């Protein structure tokens, strides 16, 4: 009789310990994947701000040599405003669209640079291109890492037993990916005075 009681206590004890550990581990994992998503989101936001600053600086550099320059400058400003509005509304797709719009403005800006021989001859030209390559490379990584973090989060909260934890702790079921139009995610193929 005593032996049976010990076994029952042991089994109950095991179940309690197992559930306790599972709950702690599950909750911690949920927090980890969500914090990762939030961190990568903040990285995209930071990189987009950096890109806006860089592009504004570049647009200023080509200032006055062509009428077309004003159009590109307006595109950059417009993309920035769209981004700020979408961010304020929590509209992720709107933010991604504004990101794509900025990429189009960048492509146009680079065309202006290529057509501007006096500017290409300046020492600053290489610096501008380095700045663009650096920020576009970082932004591409930020988008990729955000989407990877979202993928990890979505997988966890939709699979068993993660779905139980997400429901139990009231976490959002799924998060949208950062999707920009094809081509907007490519790093511009910048030529550095004969060297790519």
């Amino acid at each position, binding site marked *: 009789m005593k032996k049976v009681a*010990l076994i029952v206590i042991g089994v109950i004890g095991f179940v309690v310990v*197992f559930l306790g550990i599972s709950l702690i581990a599950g909750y911690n994992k949920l927090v980890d994947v969500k914090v990762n998503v939030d961190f990568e989101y903040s990285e995209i936001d930071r990189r987009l701000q950096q890109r806006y600053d860089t592009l504004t600086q570049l647009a200023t550099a080509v200032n006055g040599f062509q009428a077309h320059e004003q159009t590109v400058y307006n595109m950059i400003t417009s993309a920035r405003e769209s981004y700020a509005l979408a961010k304020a509304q929590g509209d992720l797709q709107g933010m991604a669209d504004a990101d794509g719009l900025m990429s189009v403005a960048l492509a146009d800006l680079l065309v202006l640079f290529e057509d501007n021989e006096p500017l290409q001859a300046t020492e600053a030209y*290489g*610096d501008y291109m*380095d700045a663009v*390559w*650096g920020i576009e490379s970082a932004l591409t990584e930020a988008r990729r890492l955000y989407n990877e973090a979202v993928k990890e989060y979505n997988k966890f909260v939709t699979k068993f037993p993660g779905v139980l934890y997400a429901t139990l702790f009231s976490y959002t079921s799924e998060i949208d990916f950062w999707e920009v139009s094809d081509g907007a995610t490519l790093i511009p193929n910048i030529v550095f005075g004969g060297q790519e």
Partner: protein
Amino acid sequence: MKLATKSIALLALIVLAFVGCRNKDTYPKPTREFYVNDFADTFLPAVESTIVDEGERLNNEVSEDGSISGVQIVFATFVVENELDIASYNLTDIYRQWEIGKDDMGMLVVYFYVGDESDSSSLKLVETRIEIGYAMEVYLSPIEAGNILDDTIWIDEDESIGTVHLLYELLSVVYMDVFEYDSFNYDMNVYQDYLDTYVEYGDYDTLWGWMIYVVLSPYASWWEKGILVVIGLVVFGLGGRTVKNIGGGGRSGGMGIRRRR
């Protein structure tokens, strides 16, 4: 009761072990020296030695207020079949896997070579990249990194000199901008002399002879045997280069620069 407690503890450990088991490494692990990962086998031993020595020295540097330490500059070389294969290497992933620099204060310098992997003399340097840790971005911009590449490895005909020149320029940025040194001086002509006279293994013939004598000779004294034991511990177990250098837990976010030929 004792048995039940033990069973619960064992099962709990098994559950924890399963929860904790993960292995996501995609790229090769860093070498024991950590600061130099010459997978293409193109660096001279003297250059490797310099990178490791300077890397360890920098890693031990602490800012005056103690807020910055553990800065790491890591070099790596890879061989690719053709230039298109370079795209399969994600430097941010490598940086994060190797965890370069404490508090994201690090840099990863990577050389990509094309050619026959078994014949290092046939390898041609086609691309150089610098990946900058998150916190290091404040001190080293892509513009500055690009200018450093242009002024060092990209113009120096000798790759060894170019590599060390690049290392010293990056160190110069770190010591002067991060640790606020007034100056950081180096002389590449002096380094060229060092390179020309560098002997990889030192006077090993004599050392080996002495070691054999101590081990085999009945006339070897106890203090000689003691010295040999200490050397053995240093070389094979406790100190010097055999101590494994490791990353400081740093991460990067794709910021950096590249140069292609």
